[in-house]
């Protein structure tokens, strides 16, 4: 029984050379209730089909951005997607209620370790700070923000580590669609920076 219908907006410009996302996207495949939308494969010429994307969003109640972090943000096509699809009067504004109460979640990977994302690290800020633009975008679209799924240290990760992470990713998606993990349980709470991957590892979900 599918409780939550999940739309994975997947963006990776060079998947053929990716170690992390090739595995992750394979892990997310063939789960009842999960739709994968491979943006770079669909729109190599950056011509996002807005109407198609809108109706996809309407058919799902959980929106996941799965992508590597480039320059503290999403790959450019996913940004183009936001610019075009999240229209005024549809996604936001007084009549823009199409996405109201749907859940938003970021499933991202970062090359550096978590220790680089702190005031004393090279990146100065935590990943949660960098996710704020996305968080606010979702909020303006009347969506509910979920805790992110973050995989740190993608560079130099061993195969075993990657397999382990992907196992948790698949497990998470399966249980989310089946309703064993509720949206309430992973809803982002102010002041509490939680990583779903960590919670899965600890068996908290």
């Amino acid at each position, binding site marked *: 029984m599918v409780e939550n219908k999940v739309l994975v907006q997947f963006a990776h410009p060079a998947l053929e050379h*990716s170690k992390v996302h090739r595995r992750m996207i394979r892990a997310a495949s063939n789960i009842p209730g999960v739709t994968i939308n491979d943006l770079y494969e669909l729109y*190599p010429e950056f011509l996002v089909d807005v109407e198609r994307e809108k109706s996809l969003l309407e058919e799902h109640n959980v929106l996941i951005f799965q992508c590597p*972090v480039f320059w503290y943000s999403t790959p450019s096509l996913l940004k183009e997607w936001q610019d075009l699809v999240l229209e005024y009067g549809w996604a936001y504004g007084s009549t823009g209620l199409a996405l109201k109460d749907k859940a938003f979640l970021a499933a991202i990977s970062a090359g550096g370790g978590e220790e680089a994302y702190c005031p004393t690290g090279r990146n100065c800020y935590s990943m949660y700070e960098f996710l704020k633009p996305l968080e606010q975008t979702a909020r303006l679209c009347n969506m509910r923000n979920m805790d992110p799924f973050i995989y740190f240290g*993608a*560079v130099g990760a061993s195969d075993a580590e990657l397999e382990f992470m992907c196992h948790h990713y698949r497990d998470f998606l399966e249980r989310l669609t089946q309703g064993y993990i509720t949206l309430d349980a992973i809803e982002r709470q102010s002041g509490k920076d939680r990583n779903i991957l960590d919670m899965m590892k600890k068996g908290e979900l």
Partner: protein
Amino acid sequence: MDDSFLYMAFVFLMAAVISVPIASRLGLSSVLGYLVAGVIIGPFVLGFIGEEGEDIMHAAEFGVVMMLFLIGLELQPSVLWKMRTSVLGLGGLQVGLSAAVICAACMVFGMAFKPALAIGLILALSSTAIVVQSLNEKGWFKTSGGQAGFSILLFQDIAFIPILAMLPLLAPEVLDPELVMAAAPAAGGEAVGDPQPAWFVTLKVLVVLGGIVVVGRYVMRYVFRAIASTGISEVFTAAALALVIGVALLMNFIGLSPALGTFLAGVVLADSEYRHELESDVEPFKGLLLGLFFIAVGATVDFNLIFENPLTIALIVLGLMVGKAVVLNILGRIFGLKGAQLWLVTLGLSQGGEFGFVLFSYAGQLEVVSRDTLGLFVAAIAVTMALTPLLFVLYEKVILPRSGSNQSESDREPDEVEEQGSVIIVGFGRFGHLIGRMLRSKGIRPTIMDNDAEHIEFWRNLGFKVYFGDATRHELLTKAGAAEAKLLVITTNQHETNMRILEAAKKHFPKLKVFVSAAGRPETYALMEGGADRVFREYLGTSLLMGIESLQALGVRRFNAHRTAWRLMRYDEEHMQEGLQMWKDRPTYFKRAKERIEQFEEGELRQVAKEVAGDNEAWDPGKFVERTDVELDK
């Protein structure tokens, strides 16, 4: 092999090789080139060939037979069926009326009825060879005028044998029957003087024609398949030629015109899957034989006779052409031809034809017409045939531009270019129409011109205002608004035409920006040198799209394939300017081009290697400092 044969072959081939390119350079039809070549090598100028010209002409007439076979291949039976009214009606009336008019004229000049009628019937026939060849060459065959003309010629081909059969009846009473018999086979008909009863002849004709249809429809396919499966191409060519010659022989046997028979065989085979193969096999032979035929016509023009009787011949020529033209014009009007199409038929079919040579020689043997008179008429036919290509030039350069298109049956007025867009598109075929659609989707109404009646009709039906016109003439460009336009887009599928329009535009409107499409690299370089602001190779976009999908089919990600495609396009376009400088010096060009091709491939492969080496999730400023060779994943 006999040296004199080789000598003759050499003279004829060289005459063709020299004269036809010159004619085509001058924008004239090849027919005129051949005719002039014939005159030059003939007995009255250089004298390379003498009296044998006439024999050669008879042999080369087989080119006409082949031409009709090829025309038949192009015509589906249903199309032919639709032409029946115009063949029988228009064709029948043309032959009947022209014969009557000419006969009457001859009698006015004091001839007896019988010879006058013979001359009338013979001169009523026009030249299939010259007319069809010219129509095909100019692309007018499919126009309504071209079709009407062809219908008439088809009827004349049918009428040839009955006329042949009638000539003995027109001979003086005291005629040696053996003379008739002796003359007949030489003229190519067995039916003449044939003692067989009428029902037998009819039966024979029906059986043979039915046989051609049945065999062509149901048997030839297996024969061709068997031959094709041997994979030896010359055997197929031999079979194609044997087929044409065989049908011609059969026709002689039953007393019908060989040209008509092979035409029928062509129509029967028009639906066959071997049609294109047959076409391409017979085509070169037809071309050479027809060329030979035209040269022979040129060579047989008897200038001695013409110089001795200039006035008489001029009178015959003028009378013949005017008389036939008047008849054609009246009939054309009755059968609904208008404007330029009417004039195409009027001027195009006003000459005497190659059948005239055959029939006159037969009539001479039968003493229907006296030898002296006969010579004058034969010379006059040759002159009218030689004049015909000039009439086609007159039609093309004077009448066609004035009357606009009028290719359709509707009472369309000559196209006045009424709207003037800031863009002019010339050539609205499969390439140009997309550009037009893009412009229109942005609210820009281009002025569109084309010289193909069918394109124009097609796009007009779809609501596009396409104008007929030859844009190589700067007057037409002016009318289309070239003086005020911002851009001229030239996309005809003919490089020569594109080049000429570009030249006209650059000469008369130097400020006008000109974009041109080109088929390949040589054309591109020529257009670049001709001053085009931008040249677009026609295949470029499509071949890249195909490359993208091919890569995709092999599992390459689309975004990756796209970027390679557009990088390749940019890379290749960059090379065009450099290539232009080197194009003339082939070794350097090829060396450099090879380098460029290798450079691109190496660059792409290096990119891949880099991307594999650096992990793409590795975007991280820290890592970048240490691994500068890792490119950002973009």
